[in-house]
């Protein structure tokens, strides 16, 4: 049986670049956030501030949404390391198309994000139990994380295809992560008390749409607003993927630092 090139690349992505320590940190960090931050803040934040449930029940969907960052960062970094260690050049000189390599990265992102969703649900299990999600809610959660992951992967791949310095790439990537995570509704809701400027910034952040939609799916309150959120995420994912594909077409395979 011949395995399609994209799947061969996905297997290679997992096998070659994802060492156990990195995987542990990528999934462990948000899981610990649920356990520690959830426990500690649940004692000081009233349930009215988080829509009726405990802070942990507010945080778990947020950390599920967070997985789109995890997935995106994994692909962005994979691509950067492949460029740095000339594996893009080596792979492109083999029986693969650039589109297949890009497809492999996106699939890796999705799989990683999916595993991340599972890990977050497991970490939240002792606090919120098994969430009762309708098939529509499950589909919405997965679609949201998938679109968000493609958005972040596309963004970082586009960035990685233009930058020639590891320093620049990792600095921008870290800044982006920080900005996107803290200026979103992953950790806190937007309320009437939220300063308007901050609220505006929050709503300019795709992670906010993802976190709110996933929260609605967990709460069983999906509505028209969530459809709009998915549309926004889908559009952004398309734009970022387009930017990544554009970067790939013009990718200079020469040495980078």
């Amino acid at each position, binding site marked *: 049986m*011949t*395995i399609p090139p994209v799947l*061969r*690349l996905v*297997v*290679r992505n997992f*096998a*070659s*670049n994802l*060492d156990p320590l990195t995987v542990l940190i990528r999934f462990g960090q948000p899981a610990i956030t649920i356990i520690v931050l959830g426990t500690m803040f649940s004692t000081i934040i009233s349930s009215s501030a988080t829509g009726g449930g405990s802070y942990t029940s507010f945080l778990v969907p947020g950390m599920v949404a967070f997985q789109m960052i995890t997935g995106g960062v994994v692909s962005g970094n994979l691509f950067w*390391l492949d460029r740095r*260690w*000339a*594996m893009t*050049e*080596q*792979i*492109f*000189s*083999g*029986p*693969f*198309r650039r589109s297949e390599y890009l497809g492999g990265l996106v699939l890796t992102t999705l799989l990683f994000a999916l595993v991340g969703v599972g890990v977050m649900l497991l970490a939240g299990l002792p606090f919120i139990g098994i969430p009762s999600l309708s098939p529509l809610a499950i589909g919405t959660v997965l679609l949201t994380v998938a679109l968000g992951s493609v958005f972040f992967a596309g963004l970082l791949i586009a960035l990685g295809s233009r930058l020639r310095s590891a320093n620049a790439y990792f600095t921008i990537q870290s800044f982006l992560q920080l900005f996107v995570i803290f200026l979103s509704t992953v950790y806190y809701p937007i309320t009437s008390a939220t300063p308007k400027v901050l609220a505006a910034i929050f709503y300019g952040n795709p992670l906010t749409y993802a976190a709110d939609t996933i929260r609605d799916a967990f709460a069983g309150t999906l509505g028209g607003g969530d459809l709009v959120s998915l549309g926004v995420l889908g559009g952004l994912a398309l734009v970022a993927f387009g930017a990544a594909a554009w970067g790939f077409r013009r990718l200079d*395979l020469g*040495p980078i630092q």
Partner: protein
Amino acid sequence: MTPGSEVVLEALDLGHAYAPGRYAVRHLSVELHRGEVLGLLGRNGAGKTTTVRMFTTLLPPTEGTARILGMDIRTGGRALRSRLGVVLQAESLDFVTVERNLTLYGFLWGVPREVAKSRAEEMIELFELEGARHRKPWALSGGERRRFQVARELMHDMEILFLDEPTVGLDAIARRRILEFLKRRSRAGLSMVFTTHILHEADLLCDRVAVMHQGRLRALATPAELKHRYAGAREVSMSFRQPLPATLTAALGRELAGRGGSSPTTEPDPVGAGTSIRFRVEHAEELLPWLTRWVQLQGLELSRLSVEEATLEGAFLGLIGDLPGAPETAPGLPTPGAGT
């Protein structure tokens, strides 16, 4: 197997410009036959790597054409690349152990698992990587990384192998082993394009050598032809059993001058009681029959006669060493691509 007549690579006026008017390679016309090893020689920046990158579809040519295995390099894409092997100049590594790297690369190329496993064992033994089998790339020495990179490329089948300076950083024994292995593979029908700065390697491995300078082909010939044509003057030294009178030395000097040789220098033979003389002359082998006759005619007796060996390095220096700036074509050299 000697190189066959089947042409597997044919480039015609191939070129790549990084910017308008700034050519890395220009007017490259060359052929490669099945089972042939073609060496690309040249100084840094001569265009060797750019040429390999064009042939392997990593870099699109901006002018000219090239067909490899019957396919145009602009449109051949995956179908073409799946029949090639490439050892890049840059270190390209995956972050798993050497053994896993090999089998993973085999998997990427669609090599069946069992075949990949046994081939990995073969490569580990052949390229002396047993001690590095369970180490990750960053724990390897420079030489091990290079050996590993060549070994990895041989995990899959191919019809043409491109090797861009594959022996950089290798010790003499490892280099010799790799060259001998490549020679065996070429005899078995594998065609190769091989770039190197180590001219002795090209002499050992290559059936023909293309000398590039500033993006252009300056000569294309067998190593023997290149040495014959461009190796330049070589030193001939002779020792006589008896002292050589000054009149004879002067007479020899006049004869040599008429044959393109330098003035002979004389000194007492460090071994015997006679005289040793040395001079430089082009195409020394052609002079030897005359020289031995002259010695006999003068009633002299030779105790030693030696001619400095012609090397590809000498030919390379003779061909490239004096080339200034960026001439369109060096005077007196064959037209690039003439296939001499």
